[in-house]
């Protein structure tokens, strides 16, 4: 059948079972938007392309399906970059489409031209510029295949306007094969046996699981393995939800703001079994002091992750779920009684805690949300202290229910990602735990949420600061607060005067009014005793709600492993 490029675009998306696209149109996209107009696809018009990319990401993270976004040439494409980089760092399957100027103009500095494939090359798993309509169908199908398989990631397709208009035969390809792309799914049986042997011989093992466990849907297998041999489990930020919060084997998060006992366990382990985690510097602390006594088994689908930061004794390349299934068969039961007892003592000596007084503290707000939603909501975070408190105090029960920009640490991720997640999971409560700084980076998407009736809840932990940066300035720069107060002119006046600090306490912006201006509901809470009732009320409102909790401004996140320190050089309170 002869079809135009724009029609092929729609056909391919339907073949890939896409139901929703996020984006903003523009000149070179007119042929494609004319076809979107009467297609069955749901189009969500965002207010910024960054929002569209994060929405596609949130949709993908919360479902495992490929998220799709689209932006016009030039500024539309460059606006996508942060969203693509965010998805890339966290291995999230997204397909992004960009319009491009006509092929005969490419390279001429045409109006709204940007070298989109050049700009996005380092922040995508792969990208394409389609110069001939006859390649479009194959390219789109390849893009979805690449995004979703192996180690997932974002793929971008740049489509010049004349290619969208041109016509050719639509083949309805039923399969894609790429000779240069053959991910390994099954672990090497010999390596699996070696891994099992190390596990069977170990006395102080730790399972260190990362985003790969979520991507490969291997949560069940991790639980089975850990319970069979009584191996304690620590999760990275990206693996939150992969292991049940109540379990005695759950050490919770490790790393810079991980629990004391998780970090102690890592440092004292004789065996670390890494599954779909990549020994990121936020998890390992100072490398030359990392887990000195431990042998390391590394299960990962991406060979480039293995022995990148730490030398691995037994690498097993392949899909985590497949490998774990095999591994479990060879692993013997064990109680690891002494080891678990030692860990329990560490846990008791320095539990995850905060000052539970009359003041409205951010941790209390997160705990209240955790309690009220029974850990069953989808929690999305922004970046900074809010993110760490969410990770520490929201006891998330299920995989794909905790979405956070881990690798890139993108402020402004949370709210649009929450919208994407809510669209994909309309029956679930979706909450963005936000900072007052981060939320302002994509607050324009309130319009998108209100107009499309996407009932997400934003919880702003308003500390009037770029809190995480302030915390570092307090701890490591002698409390010289440089450009972190969100309500002062950073370059004016005496930075130390009292009046200055007072000025920090005004409402800029007034989040309640902002919410109302967009047609959402705004609620401000300033007292601890009102937290739970206000949350309950907000959860019952069938509209997007912005909740502002005016929290202790100088609350810090603890525990903390300072940058450059070893994991066990962990601070649990201010010196």
């Amino acid at each position, binding site marked *: 059948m002869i079809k135009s490029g724009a029609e092929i675009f729609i056909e391919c998306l339907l073949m890939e079972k896409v139901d929703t696209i996020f984006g903003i149109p523009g000149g070179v996209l007119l042929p494609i938007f004319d076809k979107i107009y009467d297609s069955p696809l749901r189009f969500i018009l965002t207010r910024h392309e960054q929002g569209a990319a994060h929405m596609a990401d949130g949709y993908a993270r919360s479902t495992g399906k490929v998220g799709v976004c689209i932006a016009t040439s030039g500024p539309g494409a460059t606006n996508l970059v942060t969203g693509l980089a965010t998805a890339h760092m966290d291995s999230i399957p997204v397909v992004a489409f960009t319009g491009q100027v006509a092929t005969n103009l490419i390279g001429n500095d045409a109006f709204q031209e940007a070298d989109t494939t*050049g700009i996005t*090359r*380092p922040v995508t798993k792969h990208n394409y*510029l389609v110069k001939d309509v006859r390649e479009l169908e194959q390219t789109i199908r390849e893009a979805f295949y*690449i995004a979703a398989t192996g180690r997932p990631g974002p793929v971008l397709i740049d489509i010049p306007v004349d290619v969208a208009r041109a016509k050719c035969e639509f083949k309805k390809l039923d399969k894609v094969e*790429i*000779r*240069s792309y053959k991910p390994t799914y099954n672990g090497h049986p010999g390596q699996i046996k070696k891994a099992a042997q190390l596990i069977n011989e170990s006395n102080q093992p730790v399972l260190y699981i990362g985003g790969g466990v979520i991507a490969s849907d291997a949560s069940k297998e991790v639980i089975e393995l850990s319970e069979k041999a009584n191996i304690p489990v620590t999760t990275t930020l990206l693996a939150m939800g992969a292991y049940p919060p109540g379990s005695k084997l759950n050490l919770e998060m490790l790393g810079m703001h991980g629990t004391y006992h998780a970090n102690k366990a890592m440092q004292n382990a004789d065996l670390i079994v890494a599954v779909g985690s990549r020994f990121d510097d936020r998890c390992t602390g100072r490398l030359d002091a990392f887990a000195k006594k431990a042998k390391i088994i590394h299960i990962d689908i991406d*060979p*480039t992750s293995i022995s990148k930061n730490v030398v691995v004794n037994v690498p097993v390349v392949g899909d985590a779920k497949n490998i774990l299934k095999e591994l479990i068969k060879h692993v013997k039961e064990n109680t690891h009684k002494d080891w678990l007892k030692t860990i329990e003592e560490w846990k008791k000596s320095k539990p995850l805690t905060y000052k539970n007084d009359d003041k409205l503290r951010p941790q209390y707000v997160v705990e209240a949300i955790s309690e009220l939603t029974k850990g069953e909501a989808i929690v999305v975070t922004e970046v900074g202290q809010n993110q760490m408190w969410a990770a520490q105090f929201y006891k998330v029960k299920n995989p794909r229910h905790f979405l956070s920009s881990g690798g890139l640490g993108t402020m402004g991720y949370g709210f649009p990602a929450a919208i994407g997640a809510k669209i994909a999971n309309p029956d679930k409560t979706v909450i963005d735990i936000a900072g007052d700084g981060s939320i302002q980076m994509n607050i324009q998407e309130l319009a998108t949420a209100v107009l499309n009736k996407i009932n997400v809840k934003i919880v702003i932990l308003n500390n009037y600061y770029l809190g995480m940066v302030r915390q570092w300035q307090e701890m490591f720069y002698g409390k010289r607060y440089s450009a972190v107060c969100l309500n002062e002119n950073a370059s004016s006046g005496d930075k130390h005067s009292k009046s200055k600090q007072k000025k920090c306490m005004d409402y800029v912006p007034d989040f309640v009014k902002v919410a109302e201006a967009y047609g959402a509901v705004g609620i401000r809470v300033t007292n601890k005793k009102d937290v739970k009732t206000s949350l309950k009320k907000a959860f019952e409102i069938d509209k997007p709600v912005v909740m502002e909790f005016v929290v202790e401004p100088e609350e810090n996140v603890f525990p903390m492993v300072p940058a450059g320190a070893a994991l066990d050089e962990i601070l649990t309170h201010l010196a």
Partner: protein
Amino acid sequence: MRHTISVLVENKFGVLARIATLFAARGFNIDSLAVGETETPDISRMTIVVRGDDRILEQVEKQLNKLLDIIKVIDFKETRHLERDLALIKVKSAKNNRSELIQIADIFRAKIIDVSADSVIIEITGNEEKIQALMNMLRPFGIKEMCRTGIIAMGRGVK
């Protein structure tokens, strides 16, 4: 350590940029790079010579393997192989030393491919040491210009 890496790639635009980005992002300077078609026209071979920390290079090779459009990566470090580079060298020459230059060229099995009033162009094929050795001999005459194709390499034997 010096590595000679042979990369089989899809013969498509943009592939070179992907590969160059990988090396550049880690601060590697590429000593030489040669690209050409293989026996299969839609596959090209790039031969890259690069020096650097072995562990980081191993990482780069894995990253290369991971790139779409790259079919195969071979680091020749462990395998028996041949390397060839072709250089054109323009040397200052007057009537009185031309025969000496011809002699030197002969010893190296190089060819004089152009002669003008004040210079000659010598063509030489060989591995890196051989070309270096010839250069050393020619330097006293005055080298006006040199260009090289970059090393290409092939494993010996069956495959």
